[in-house]
């Protein structure tokens, strides 16, 4: 379980290039760094659920990203807050 405040990087991965899949991690966040705000609960993993495969309940987090850094435009201090499943999050070594 990732504690609030943990710095993470979203996996820079594109499973959609390898075959049919259902992903709830937006393209614009792949490879971006953010901060875990809180654990929202454990939910059946959509990447299995969408294909009627047995879906483990995995931790889902609210993760905060600096909005201007993601887009190269915006207002200092503005944030994007996104629900992401644990398999997509890599912790950054301090």
């Amino acid at each position: 379980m990732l504690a609030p405040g943990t710095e993470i990087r979203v996996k820079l991965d594109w499973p959609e290039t390898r075959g049919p899949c259902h992903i709830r991690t937006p393209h614009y966040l792949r490879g971006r760094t953010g901060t875990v705000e809180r654990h929202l609960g454990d939910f059946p993993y959509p990447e299995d659920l969408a294909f009627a495969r047995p879906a483990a309940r995995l931790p889902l987090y609210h993760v905060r990203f600096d909005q201007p850094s993601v887009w190269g435009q915006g207002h200092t201090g503005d944030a994007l807050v996104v629900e992401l499943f644990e398999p997509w999050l890599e912790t950054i070594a301090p």
Partner: protein
Amino acid sequence: MSLIEADSERLLAAVTSLLAQKGIASDDELVERQRVTDAASPGQGARMVARAWLDPEYRALMLADGAKAAEAIGIPMRGMPPLGVLENDAETHHLVVCTLCSCYPRAVLGYPPLWFKSAAYRARAVRDPRGILVEFGTTLPDSIRLRVVDSTADYRWMVLPMRPAGTEGWNEAQLTAIVREGDMIGVTLPQA
């Protein structure tokens, strides 16, 4: 014949009969769900907001568990995704979008407005949120921290806006009447 060519009434009858046969949902349950879906409207969310403005205990419940708070005032939440409530304050404004599709807290806000599902809103809400807010008539001061909540997975999100000035002494019905759909998505602010 492919599914796309099938007569939609017959297709629906086949699906509902399979749902019943497999014990997934009876006809009565489907009728009940249709009734609940049709009854949902922004007026439901507005009742929650007005109550939260008047009752600190209800406000605390709403921020801790939106679904429980909805049920507490008679909004059916069975089978609905968890409802998260985003609290605006003097320093923070929230804007909700679903960039992947059109996730929306239908139980408390009803059907989403068409623009919420548009590619333009979904793209711009994350890239140029302050710009899109201006087009809705909402200019945020520089001192306000904007949090754009991208509804990507299992939660549904609604905004608890700030109570506007000029509503002192108003009762719950008066307050409910001024809370609009856009105020609970975060594109507009309630006006007295």
